[in-house]
């Protein structure tokens, strides 16, 4: 097949397939690898300049990798829990936003807007310092460690965003679906659970995964409040090595790389799902 010869300045006149290929700024896997290589190279350069009496930067990094990875797993655990909690509460809040009761609708809207427009770090601090370190129920004392508080703190913005995703997905369905259900004598609750929400799941999946990606990257905020996740451990490892400046670049590059390797596939899969659902509808 010959290259199509569309000579036009108007992008709308181009076939859809051709228009989409102009995505020159898409991040590809090799960008991440190149970034990592560059950081390693520059750290090697710094090392060469300094005195050769210490262990090489790379060898030191390798020594600490198991600890850093265990910290990263903790990040993932936090992200999973915060996502689960945020999705659960956020879905309820999102349904509250379409409630026919003005009080429920209004308060759900307010809570959603309030937490959606608050900085994540502030919400994290908020959760850290407002929640007690343990709950005394009289007969049993439930400890409330920092990482649980971090999960709650991070789940607040997730909750607010999920609430908007749910509300938006419901609003995006044609009103004919509601009318058809109404004319078949479904109750409002039946309409929602049998007809509206099943159709929304598809529409909600891409933004929901996108949100998860953002949340995962935000879990490092927990280091600011002292949870021993990967950033905290990296700092501690660097301190244990006596604050060698040549270690900064390789260590933080490593943290960047593992986040990239974890989040990038999710982002690609989200794009894939978006395209798939866009065509089907």
């Amino acid at each position: 097949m010959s290259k199509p010869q569309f000579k036009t300045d108007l992008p709308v006149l181009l076939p859809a397939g051709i228009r989409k290929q102009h995505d020159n700024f898409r991040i590809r896997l090799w960008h991440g690898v190149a970034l990592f290589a560059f950081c390693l190279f520059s750290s090697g350069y710094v090392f060469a300049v300094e005195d050769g009496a210490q262990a090489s930067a790379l060898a030191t990094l390798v020594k600490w990798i198991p600890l850093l990875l265990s910290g990263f797993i903790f990040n993932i655990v936090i992200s999973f829990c915060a996502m689960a909690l945020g999705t659960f509460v956020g879905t309820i809040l999102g349904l509250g936003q379409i409630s026919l009761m003005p009080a429920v609708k209004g308060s759900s809207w307010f809570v959603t807007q309030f937490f959606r427009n608050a900085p994540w770090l502030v919400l994290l601090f908020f959760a850290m310092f407002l929640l007690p370190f343990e709950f005394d129920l009289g007969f049993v004392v439930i400890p409330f460690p920092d990482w649980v508080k971090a999960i709650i703190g991070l789940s607040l913005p997730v909750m607010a965003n999920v609430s908007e995703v749910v509300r938006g997905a419901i609003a995006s369905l044609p009103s004919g679906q509601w009318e058809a259900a109404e004319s078949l004598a479904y109750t409002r609750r039946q309409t929602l659970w049998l007809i509206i929400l099943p159709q929304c799941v598809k529409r909600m999946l891409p933004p929901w995964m996108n949100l998860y990606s953002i949340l995962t990257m935000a879990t490092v905020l927990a280091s600011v409040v002292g949870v021993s996740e990967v950033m905290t451990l990296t700092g501690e490892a660097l301190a244990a090595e006596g604050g060698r400046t040549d270690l900064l670049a390789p260590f933080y590059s490593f943290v960047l790389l593992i986040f990239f390797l974890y989040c990038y596939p999710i982002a690609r899969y989200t794009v894939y799902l978006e395209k798939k659902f866009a065509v089907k509808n």
Partner: protein
Amino acid sequence: MNWTPDQPMVSIKDVHKAFGDFEVLKGVSFDVMKGEVICIIGPSGSGKSTLIRCINALNDIQQGSILVEGQEVNDPNLDKLELRKKVGMVFQQYNLFPHKTALQNIMMAPIRVLKRDKKETEELARQLIRKVRLEGKEDSYPGELSGGQQQRVAIARSLAMKPDIMLFDEVTAALDPETVGEVLLTIKELAQDGMTCILVTHEMGFAREVADHIYFTDKGLIIEHGPPKTFFDKAKDPRTKEFLSQIL
């Protein structure tokens, strides 16, 4: 109030309806007897669709009375669900549930709303599929069906509730010319079976053939009405004449 079949099945009296300041219906009245087929025609924006959407309380009215089998629709304490079990409706845009197959679309309401037995309902649904001539399409999703096929599933879905009255809101307006026929045939058979039907339509030939009575609306009022023969051949009102001359 006890309703008996010799009384009008639907009795509309002096119905007024406004969206904000815009008065869509300015006092419409007519009766529909059991087994009758009524066609409402008229220019767009004349309130036809609004009128039939009032009959199953999808739209509320500000003034007047709509009695369906003796039950007042314009009543704040109306049990809308009970009303809608008796009144089926088919829409211009089919509005099938895209995540369910044709058969599931038909079976869902009887099972979930009327709490009917699943097996009996499936049997009924398969019968209805045959009735609308869609054998073999039971397991197709709406997205895999043509507009005409989807509309026939929508008719079957509505019939599965065993309604006493069927409302058709411009059901062929969104269809390709070649699929209009199959949908009209289905409605015609329904009418011949004795179903009470109220149709809003632009298909004049069809209206002439199946309707027992035709109402012409313009600007929220019924301008003229009569049996198809007298209506189409001996229209008196100048607006009716003008409309018919443009369409026929």
